[in-house]
C-alpha cells in the first residue's frame, strides 16, 4: 500500500491524542479541593488520633462531627482540653488521666468545636469561646447523663467556667486547672519569655516546643507519639480551614469583645449567687503561662459568694501538671469530689461579715 506509513502515523497520533485526553481527564478527576483530602496517618499514629490505649469515637452534635473518648462507669465526668481552633489541640491531653479516673467515673473527653478531629462550626459567628461553650453544652446534653462533674484546663478551664456560669444546673462540681482564660488579668505573665526559643513555623513544631516550654517536667508530660498524633490531626483539611476562617475574622464581634465580657461575668459572679457548686481550683506552682497569681485572683472572684471553694497548689508543676503527676492529680480530684458529694446542699453562706470588702 502506498499510504501505509501515513495510516500508521495517524493511528499513533490518535492513540497519542486518546492517551493525552485520558491523562488530562484523570488529572481533572483528581480531587482538587483541599476539603476532599484525608491524610494518611504515619506509622504508629492511629487514624482516629487515639493515644494512651484509648479508642476515640464520633458523634454528631447539632451537625458538627465530634470526636470524643468515653471510659468507665459511675458518676459522669467531662474533661475539657485547652488551647483550641487547631487540629493539634485535643482531648488527647487527658490520656494519662482517663484510665485512672474511669475506675471511679463515667468519663467523657471531647475535642472542642473546631479542635482535634471535631468539625468546624456551621456558622462563622460561632468561631469564639461562646461557640465552644455551646458545643460542649450540647455534647453533655447529647450524652444524656444528667449533671456532670466538669473539669477544664487552660482555655478549657475558661470553657468550663463560662459553661458553669451559663448552665449551672448541669454542673455538679467544677474543677478548674491552670487557666488564664477564666481568670482576671493580673499584670503580665512569663509566657512570652519562655516562648522566645520556639520556632514560629511549622505549626506542629511551634506547638510541641510551646507545650514543652510551659511544662515543668516536659519529658514526663509528653512523648513523641503525642506530638506526632497532634501533627496528624492538624493536617486535616478542615484544620487548615479553621485557621483560615479565624484569620479572616470569623467569630467576631464576640471574639474581640471577650475581655470585656469576662469582666462583666466576674462582676456578676461576685455580686450574685450564680456559681455555687463546689469548685476546686487546681494550680501548678511553676506554670509560667497561667500563673499562680491569676489563679489566686480567680479564687478571689469565686470565693465572694461561694463558700464551697477550695484551691490546691502543686509543687514542681507546670501548665500540664495532670500529665506530670497523673496519680496524684487524679487522687486530689477524686478526694475533692468524694468529700463534696457527701455534704448537705445548704451550707451557711457566710458568718456575720467580719470585715468590710
Amino acid at each position, binding site marked *: 500500500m502506498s499510504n501505509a506509513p501515513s495510516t500508521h502515523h495517524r493511528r499513533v497520533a490518535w492513540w497519542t491524542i486518546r492517551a493525552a485526553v485520558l491523562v488530562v481527564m484523570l488529572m481533572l478527576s483528581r480531587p482538587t479541593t483541599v476539603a476532599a483530602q484525608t491524610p494518611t496517618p504515619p506509622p504508629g499514629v492511629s487514624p482516629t488520633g487515639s493515644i494512651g490505649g484509648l479508642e476515640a469515637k464520633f458523634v454528631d452534635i447539632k451537625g458538627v462531627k465530634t470526636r470524643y473518648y468515653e471510659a468507665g462507669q459511675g458518676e459522669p465526668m467531662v474533661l475539657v482540653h485547652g488551647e483550641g481552633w487547631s487540629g493539634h489541640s485535643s482531648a488527647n491531653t487527658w490520656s494519662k488521666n482517663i484510665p485512672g479516673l474511669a475506675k471511679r467515673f463515667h468519663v467523657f473527653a471531647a475535642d472542642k468545636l473546631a479542635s482535634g478531629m471535631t468539625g468546624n462550626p456551621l456558622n462563622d459567628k460561632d468561631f469564639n469561646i461562646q461557640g465552644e461553650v455551646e458545643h460542649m453544652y450540647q455534647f453533655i446534653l447529647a450524652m444524656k447523663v444528667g449533671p456532670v462533674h466538669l473539669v477544664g484546663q487552660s482555655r478549657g478551664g475558661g470553657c468550663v467556667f463560662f459553661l458553669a456560669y451559663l448552665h449551672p444546673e448541669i454542673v455538679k462540681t467544677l474543677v478548674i486547672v491552670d487557666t488564664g482564660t477564666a481568670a482576671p488579668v493580673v499584670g503580665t505573665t512569663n509566657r512570652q519569655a519562655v516562648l522566645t526559643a520556639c520556632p514560629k513555623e511549622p505549626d506542629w513544631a511551634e506547638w510541641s516546643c510551646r507545650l514543652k516550654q510551659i511544662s515543668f517536667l516536659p519529658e514526663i508530660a509528653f512523648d513523641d507519639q503525642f506530638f506526632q498524633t497532634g501533627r496528624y490531626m492538624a493536617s486535616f483539611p478542615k484544620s487548615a480551614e479553621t485557621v483560615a476562617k479565624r484569620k479572616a475574622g470569623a467569630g467576631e464581634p464576640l471574639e474581640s469583645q471577650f475581655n470585656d465580657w469576662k469582666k462583666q461575668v466576674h462582676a456578676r459572679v461576685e455580686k450574685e449567687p450564680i456559681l455555687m457548686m463546689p469548685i476546686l481550683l487546681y494550680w501548678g*506552682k511553676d506554670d509560667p503561662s497561667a500563673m499562680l497569681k491569676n489563679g489566686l485572683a480567680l*479564687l478571689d472572684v469565686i470565693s465572694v459568694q461561694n463558700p464551697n471553694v*477550695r484551691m490546691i497548689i*502543686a509543687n514542681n508543676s507546670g501548665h500540664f501538671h495532670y500529665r506530670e503527676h497523673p496519680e496524684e492529680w487524679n487522687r486530689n480530684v477524686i*478526694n475533692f469530689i468524694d468529700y463534696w458529694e457527701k455534704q448537705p446542699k445548704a451550707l451557711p453562706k*457566710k458568718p456575720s461579715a467580719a470585715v468590710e470588702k
Partner: protein
Amino acid sequence: MPFISPRVAMAGSSDRAARLLWSSVLLPMVVMLVLMAVPQRALAATGPNASIGGLTAKFVDVKGVKTRYYEAGQGVPMVLIHGGSTAGSSTANVWSRNIPGLAKRFHVFAVDRLGSGLTGNPLNDADYATPGQVEHIYQFIQTLKLGKIQLVGHSAGGAVAFYLAVHHPEIVTTLTIIGMGPENPPAADGPSRLDLSSCPDQNVYEGLKCRVEKLAWLKTTFDAEYWEADASMAMQPKSKEARAKVVALTNDAWRANMTAYRQKAWDLVRNDGVLKMPVMIYSGKQDVLDWGQADPTAMLRGELGLFDILGAKNPKVKMVIVNEAGHFPYREYPEEFNRDLLAFIDHFQSQAAPATKPLAKPAK
C-alpha cells in the same frame, strides 16, 4: 414522796418566818439540787484533766516534766502540736474535733506543749524558748517510743513541728503545717487584719482568749465546753507563773537567740534542702493573721512565702486553701481536714520512689 406545800405544813404565827426561810434558802437549794441532777448544756461536761469532746487526757513524765496528752486509735503514730504562746490560749484540746476521725486510721497523740495546758513548766528557764519546746516534743516521742511519726502542727505549733522536722528529719514521715507556723523571711509586710484593739491586754488570760476568738472565722469554732476547760488550765498557778516568766525572760538577747535559731533552720532548708519529707501547707482563706490590713482579701503572703522556700528544694510540697475558714480551718471543717490529711498521707505512702524526676531547669 408527796410534796407538801410549805404553806400547809407551816401554818400559824411563824408562817411568815417560815415562808421567808423557804423562799430565800430552801427553795433555791431545791432548785440547785434539781439542776445539778439534770444534765445541762450550760454546765459543760468537761472531763477530768480538762478533757473535752468525750476524750480522756492522761499524763506521762517526759524528762521530769509531767506532760498531758490525748491518745486514741491504733496504727501509724501521728502527733498533733497545738499553737499559741506558752500557757497562752491553746492546748491539745484544740484538736478535739479531729482526734476521733483521725483515730480510725492512726495512733493519734495530741500533746500539751511545755508549759502549756496542764503540762508542767520547764525545769530550766532557757527551755521556755522555742528550742526547749521542740526538744520537749522530741523527748515525748522518744519516751513513748513512737518511732517514725506523721507530724501536724498548727500556728506556733507549726513552727515547733517545722523545727522538729529540720533537726530530726529521720523521725518525720510527713509534715503538715496549718496557719503559717514558722515566721518565714520575708513575712507578710505591714500589720495584719488581726485587730486586738477591743481585747483586754495580752498579758492576761481574757486578752489571750479574745485574740483566739478573733482568729476564728466561724462562730461555731469554739463552744462553752472548750472555753471552760481552757480557762481552767490557763488559770492554774503554774500557768500564771509561766506567762509571767515568759514576759520577764523576753528581752533583746532572748529575741536575738530566737532569730538566730530560726535563721539557722531556714539556712538548712534553703541551702542544704534538709526538709525532704512530703509537706502539706493548709490555710484558711480568711485567716486574719495572713491578711494584710490594706488588702481587700487575704493574700496569704506568709503561707505562699513558706511554700516558696520549702518547695524550692522539695518536690513533695502541696498547699491547700479553704474558703470561709480562718486560722483554725481544721476545727471549722474537721471532717474535710481529716479527709485532706489522709489523702495527702495516703498518696505519699503509696509512692515507693519520688513521684518526680527533677530535671535541670533554667533559673527563672
